[in-house]
């Protein structure tokens, strides 16, 4: 699999970028529903971290209902249920047991079993819409744009939440969560030549209470990635002529990593947020069409 950033081949008029945000990214399904209803075609889908799963499902052509059912089945407490005892003990007693180079609190076996029915055996070649998935090279910290090969591998790499699941190796590179380098990878769509870029992504929800070491680690990571999210988004808004249209669902409820019961709520709020920008989206598409003519 080629994991280097891809070279633009043809302009992509409308791009949808779904950034990190875990379960909240289901809001993109609401946006997707509105775009379909309005007859607005998307030429490129980019996903990162939690957004990679929805991006892959959309690019494969799944319906909103199928995407919802798939992710509800996938994101269950089961995927977090099994500790990665070997990794934890290796980190605690490195001289005795040897540190493997990875630290994961959760064994990824249940996660892979959950992802496989939806994505197993599927490749980027099968997508109806060009798809890019972003992960992070653990050795260098660079964003890695995946555009070929196994969708299961790409999504697994992109959602390798630090300290939760181990990095995932693709072509010899250990890849971790895309949110560590590009929590809202607008730059990928810019590089691909998109005129209009719709974005949906979320800052990490900070834990309500920090009463465990895991939550402490999560807090630290979230502070970094949230600030990276804002800094990068600001730069991309100012540095390029492409029109970036953020679609921001109002999520007033606390939504944790596995709050799958909130998926319908996220979809509904995503749909509402999308409906607010639709009139402008139609106008800007007509405007860019006129500019191209």
């Amino acid at each position: 699999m080629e994991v280097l950033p891809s070279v633009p081949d043809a302009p992509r008029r409308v791009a949808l970028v779904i950034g990190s945000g875990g379960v909240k990214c289901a809001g993109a399904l609401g946006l997707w529903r509105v775009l379909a209803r309005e007859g607005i075609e998307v030429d490129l889908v980019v996903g990162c971290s939690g957004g990679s799963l929805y991006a892959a499902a959309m690019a494969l052509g799944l319906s909103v209902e199928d995407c919802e059912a798939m992710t509800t089945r996938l994101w269950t407490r089961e995927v977090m249920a099994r500790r990665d005892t070997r990794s934890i003990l290796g980190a605690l007693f490195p001289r005795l047991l040897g540190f493997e180079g990875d630290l994961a609190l959760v064994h990824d076996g249940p996660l892979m079993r959950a992802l496989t029915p939806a994505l197993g055996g599927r490749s980027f070649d099968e997508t109806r819409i060009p798809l890019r998935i972003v992960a992070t090279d653990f050795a260098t910290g660079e964003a890695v744009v995946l555009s070929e090969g196994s969708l299961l591998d790409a999504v697994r790499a992109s959602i390798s939440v630090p300290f939760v699941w181990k990095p995932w190796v693709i072509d010899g590179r250990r890849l971790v969560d895309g949110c560590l380098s590009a929590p809202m990878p607008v730059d990928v769509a810019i590089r691909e030549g998109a005129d209009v870029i719709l974005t949906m992504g979320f800052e990490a929800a900070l834990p309500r209470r920090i009463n465990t070491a895991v939550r402490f680690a999560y807090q630290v990571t979230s502070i970094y990635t949230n600030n990276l999210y804002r800094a990068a988004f600001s730069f991309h808004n100012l540095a390029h002529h492409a029109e970036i249209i953020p679609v921001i669902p109002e999520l007033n409820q606390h939504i944790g990593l596995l709050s799958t019961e909130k998926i319908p709520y996220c979809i509904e709020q995503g749909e509402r947020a999308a409906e607010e920008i639709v009139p402008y989206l139609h106008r800007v598409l007509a405007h860019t069409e006129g500019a191209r003519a």
Partner: protein
Amino acid sequence: MAEYAHELQVTVEPRGDVAVARITGSVDTITADDLLTTLQTAITGGHIRLVGDFEGVSYTSSAGLRTLLAAMKEARRSGGDLRLASVGERVLKVLELSGFTSILRLYPDVDTAVASYA
């Protein structure tokens, strides 16, 4: 929350040595040039202390953000500033997400924004 309104209207009214630009509509890629021209005309005309009244602004996108930044930089280069008042929740979210709330001064209403220049 203001409904999306695609037409942009801008009127600039002096309030002492401050000029209030009352902006209504959407600040986006279609309207950005008009807004920038109006604000630049005000600045070159000597209105370097500007308040952007955003009560009627329904939406802003990346092109709108670039316009605000350009006007703010020009006003500051001239020794003044562009400050915003009455920014609605929807626009505020975009300003926050893009880091603009850390470089622009925002006030709850026009009177407070005008008074901030005193």
